[in-house]
């Protein structure tokens, strides 16, 4: 049910966002990931002032849900276009039954089933997961010290990036304890979402060769299952703690930024920059690291684009897309230094 709500909801939301930004909502995966980024960006916009103004969690749940339902209905209104796109997808579905895609699917299934039957005890959950638990339990957003629940607290480091409230929201809707939502249900959402982004990247890199797209995806999955260094490095987060904001940042959002860069190579429409801006804002929700690393990634890549194509607008537009991150970044530094 959670998967249905998330992927169904983001699919229709993505169509609405694509329509507004005048970017073609091609296929099934693209509107889903655009929708997910938009959900998180919207959440950051609503949650930040509500947290600062001591808004209640239930108030947030109602407001966020109402806005999302509105967007969802907006998506349904464009059903003709969606049906047309789905027809194209279903006609071409067989093309995706390649050896590489089958291997990728089996590896993803293995990862999901393994994680479903095993647990990884994350020391930081006592803060982050309890932050979500406390929101549902006390109806306060962030102002209770989550590890004890016994006193008022305002830790400046995390106030701008309250990702646990996202799964607290899902928990409230489905009547499940956030601990169960995070540890048991959320991996089934985040892991497929991450590989959807890699699937899209493969689609852009090998537009005409479906078999190579599948092989690219299978290898991307494999590299999440085999690691180097310590077990708490970037890609391993997708297996060990897919419910932690940092993990989602490293394995969904940064690859998504890369995907935007790939799209930018081909077409530089205004809508593409807006979608990049939404992704950047979504990154702010995930982790304070998202506030910092997103402008670094976009800025660095756009700097190279600008130098190579001798057009400064790549850098200026990229930085404009990251403006919310930059503003929050300055505020974060003010809060923490």
């Amino acid at each position: 049910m959670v998967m249905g709500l998330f992927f169904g909801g983001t699919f229709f939301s993505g169509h609405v966002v694509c329509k507004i930004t005048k970017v073609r909502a091609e296929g099934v995966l693209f509107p889903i990931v655009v929708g997910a980024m938009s959900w998180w960006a919207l959440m950051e916009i609503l949650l930040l002032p509500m947290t600062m103004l001591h808004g209640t969690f239930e108030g947030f749940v109602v407001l966020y849900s109402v806005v999302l339902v509105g967007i969802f209905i907006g998506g349904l209104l464009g059903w003709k276009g969606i049906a047309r796109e789905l027809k194209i997808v279903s006609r071409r579905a067989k093309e995706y039954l390649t050896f590489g895609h089958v291997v990728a699917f089996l590896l993803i299934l293995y990862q999901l089933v393994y994680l479903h039957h095993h647990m990884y005890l994350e020391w930081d959950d006592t803060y982050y997961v309890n932050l979500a638990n406390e929101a549902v339990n006390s109806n306060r957003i962030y102002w209770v010290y989550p590890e004890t629940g016994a006193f008022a607290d305002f830790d400046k480091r995390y106030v701008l990036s309250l990702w646990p409230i996202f799964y607290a929201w899902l928990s409230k809707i489905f009547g499940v304890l956030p601990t169960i939502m995070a540890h048991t249900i959320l991996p089934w959402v985040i892991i497929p979402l991450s590989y959807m982004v890699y699937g899209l990247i493969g689609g852009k890199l090998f537009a005409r060769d479906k078999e190579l797209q599948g092989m690219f995806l299978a290898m991307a999955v494999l590299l999440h299952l085999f690691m180097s260094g310590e077990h708490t490095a970037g890609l391993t987060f997708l297996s060990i703690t897919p419910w932690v904001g940092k993990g989602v940042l490293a394995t969904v959002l940064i690859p998504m930024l890369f995907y935007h860069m790939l799209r930018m190579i081909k077409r530089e429409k205004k809508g593409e920059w807006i979608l990049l801006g939404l992704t950047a804002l979504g990154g702010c929700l995930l982790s304070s690291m998202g506030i910092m690393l997103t402008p670094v990634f976009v800025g660095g890549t756009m700097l190279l684009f600008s130098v190579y194509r001798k057009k400064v607008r790549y850098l200026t537009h990229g930085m404009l897309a990251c403006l919310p991150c930059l503003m929050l970044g300055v505020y974060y530094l003010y809060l923490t230094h």
Partner: protein
Amino acid sequence: MQDFFEIARTDFAAAFAGAWLFPLLLVSILWIFLKEKDKMKKLLLCGVPLLFLFVYWCPFTGILFMKLLGQNVYWRLLWLILLAVVIPYAVCILLKGLSDIQRQVAFVVLMGVLALAGKPVLSKEWFEPSTNVYKLPQNVIEVCELLPSNIHALVSNRLMPYIRQCDPTITLEYGRNSLVYNGITETEKEEQILYLEVQKSEIDLAVLAPLAKKQGCTFLVFSSNRTYIGNWKDYGYKEYASTDEFCIFVDLDYKEGQDTRKWEE
């Protein structure tokens, strides 16, 4: 400057040691540089990873980012190097020129090489079988099933990180921030005296009980291997329940269903 290189080197080793993924990344970048004809793709898949490697190792940018991100998490800058894009892309370039069967055989072989270049993540080293839907240690669930809701408790450090994940209506006397009290030998602060007393293998109830009562700890949960100096009832507590690993004690004044949660502004 020396500190910067020391931190950068340690963090880099923590991210890439014990496997062949980083050398594989460098080979992949070189391969893409030689074989890719599309200059923009070359820029994205060779230029961008090299740029962030430079940013990571260059003392000028590195020191700046250490200040911005924090020294402890400087290594996260390495997340910007997308291993799971660059390496598969290089391998796919290699596969591109092969015919159907050759391609599939080469793909399987190269998947094997990639797997051998790293260490498996999904292993018993990091994971254990889950026995409950919370995905928490079973001994925590057993204690939570015995404890009533809406109470204030002082629990063993073994339970402390997990108990509120199982039942968030319970408030705790100590969180992880109290671990800094470990190692303190002399103190006059009651909060620290209480914490240090419950860490002992033989707990003096004359010290523990009055302080626990004063802090409003209705329930006390300790490892069952603890021994006590004194009689619980003489100090206003009694044994409430027990599991294989833990003993639960309750304040004699506690009434069933009472809300004893603690709250400090």
